[in-house]
């Protein structure tokens, strides 16, 4: 029972943070860590639960970021017609939704491709996809301002009784928004994973032929996984862009995908808590190490950590810890059934034994 309450306790403590944490910089770190955790959770759905080696995830993050930024700023586009196409600045939450939808649309494309292009080829395709996006952002200066970046992006707003729509300039409020959305994302992933859909995704990872012979349509569920995953990553990207209020092509850098991958793998792919633990670890490690070591040394550390984890804790931190607790519990006590259900008493059948 306590195991169930622990996460909620954690969330409650984190929610009270702005009251006693005065350091604005730590708030900033926590907020961006939270955003990355959402992205990591989305990657986990694809990498951990469905078993797809997608290394282009930052593409969805960046697409969400740019789309939301462009929609909320408004833009005019010269497409060769008589008049340029002009879009007025849209309400910021509409832009946010637009970011999610466009990212999800690209997710759909990648999902369709995933079935045809398997394994290591798929890895390369996804990386290439992210690189192409980066170059588009870099070169389509008319739309994206290229390396000069889009700035003065409006912040997200929250409807408050009596005050109407309040723009969230204050770090404390944005932090709470990110925390809330992170909790929502976690719950959504949890619902998917524990449903018929989730079982189909896991089946694809565990044994694809068997999954097919059980009636699971591979293409369809690959697409479901990538669309959900991409949409959530797009939301994270949009959150990011309205937070730091500036976006440039560097948002598509491969190093961000790598960061998300490290978070998921070290935390524990295929577990719900994995990306959260990994996210917190790799969100804070740079800060902890910042005074002690230069950025280059930090990345050497991350590289080594990743290798060490793969060699010694291949399942990640969360499963290693849960196994430790399970071993302790098992001494003497027999586990009760799933969700409290006790297995049915053995029927006196015609003798089939297990």
């Amino acid at each position, binding site marked *: 029972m306590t195991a169930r309450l622990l996460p909620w306790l954690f969330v409650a403590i984190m929610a009270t943070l702005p009251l006693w944490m005065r350091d604005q910089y730590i708030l900033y770190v926590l907020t961006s860590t939270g955003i990355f955790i959402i992205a990591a959770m989305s990657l986990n759905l694809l990498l951990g639960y469905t078993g797809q080696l997608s290394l282009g995830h930052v593409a969805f993050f960046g697409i969400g970021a740019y789309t939301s930024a462009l929609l909320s700023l408004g833009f005019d586009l010269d497409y060769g017609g008589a008049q340029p196409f002009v879009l007025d600045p849209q309400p910021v939450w509409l832009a946010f939704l637009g970011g999610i939808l466009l990212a999800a649309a690209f997710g759909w494309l990648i999902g369709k491709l995933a079935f045809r292009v*398997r*394994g290591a080829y798929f890895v390369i395709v996804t*990386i290439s996809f992210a690189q192409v996006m980066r170059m588009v952002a*870099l070169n389509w200066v008319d739309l994206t301002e290229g390396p000069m970046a889009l700035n003065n992006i409006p912040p997200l707003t929250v409807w408050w009784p009596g005050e109407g729509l309040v723009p969230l300039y204050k770090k404390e409020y944005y932090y709470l928004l990110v925390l809330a959305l992170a909790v929502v994302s976690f719950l959504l992933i949890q619902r998917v994973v524990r449903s018929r859909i989730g079982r189909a995704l896991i089946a694809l990872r565990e044994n694809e032929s068997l999954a097919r012979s059980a009636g699971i349509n591979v293409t369809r569920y690959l697409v479901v996984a990538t669309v959900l995953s991409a949409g959530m990553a797009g939301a994270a990207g949009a959150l990011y862009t309205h937070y730091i209020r500036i976006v440039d092509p560097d948002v598509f850098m491969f190093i961000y995908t790598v960061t998300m991958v490290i978070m998921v793998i070290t935390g524990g792919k295929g577990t719900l808590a994995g990306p959260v633990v990994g996210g917190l670890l790799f969100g804070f490690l740079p800060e902890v190490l910042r005074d002690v070591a230069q950025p280059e040394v930090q990345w050497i550390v991350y*590289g080594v950590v990743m290798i060490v984890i793969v060699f010694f804790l291949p399942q990640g931190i969360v499963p290693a810890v849960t196994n430790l607790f399970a071993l302790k519990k098992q001494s003497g006590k027999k586990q009760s059934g799933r969700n409290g259900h006790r297995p049915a008493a053995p029927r006196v059948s015609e003798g089939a034994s297990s």
Partner: protein
Amino acid sequence: MPEFLQHLANAVVLGGTYALLGIGLTLIFGIMRVVNFTHGELYTFGAYMAFMLAGLFGLNFFVSLALAATLGFLLGALIEFTLLRPLKGADIDTTMLVMIGAWIAMQAGQQLMWGGVAKSVPNPFPTEPVVLGPVSVGPIRLFVLAVAVVLLAVFYLLINRTKLGVAMRATFQDPDTAALMGVNNGLMYTLTFAIGSGLAAIAGALLGPIFVVTPTMGDLVALKAFAIVILGGLGNIPGATIGGFVLALVEEFGAGYVSSGYRDAMGFLLIIAVLAVRPQGLFAAKERIG
């Protein structure tokens, strides 16, 4: 017309080094089934070694090139021995992740060692271009092309005419039978990875003097190498050679006639386009991964 020929000339020069990169990776990615993220770093390493030996130590340029390749070879052997051998039998995801870790550490290490400022490699070639009819080519580029062609020839002879080459091919096709015939599979894998890495290093050492040497130069190059391997088919050595030239042609002509900003994107678009239509690569690949 002269412009066309100039682009063609540039593409041929570039294609030679791309072919070296592609062959190196097709050995590792195609045959050993390792998604080798360190390939780009070996390329960078080769370039930095050339810089260090010729630039800092003042060694003869050609000697530096040879040494850079050898050092790359040894580094590749070290990586295989310490990181890949212990993982024998693990699935492709695991080895991929280890390679990513190694890639991050290596790039950061090179950054740490050399700083972010671009370095140039001193070389004995005159800067005045050689004019061959409508085409002008820098002398060093001709040298690079010549070396690439020689290396490609040497490599072919090695794989097809020597006992070692036979042993390597045996291990690739059927490790168990090869082992029964007395071939040391572990050694073959280490050698393969080392040769592949050595080829990447020499490609870096050759191109370093032409362009400049930066810590991140390997990233784009690595992805292009993957493009070449996919174009040519996994494990297909002639395919990788052709793929290298094809990519160089696409880049040169794409940059020249379509848009120079998207030059580097050409390779990626090519990968996506090819795989979307023919998921097994352009040429009939030996076997597919996954």
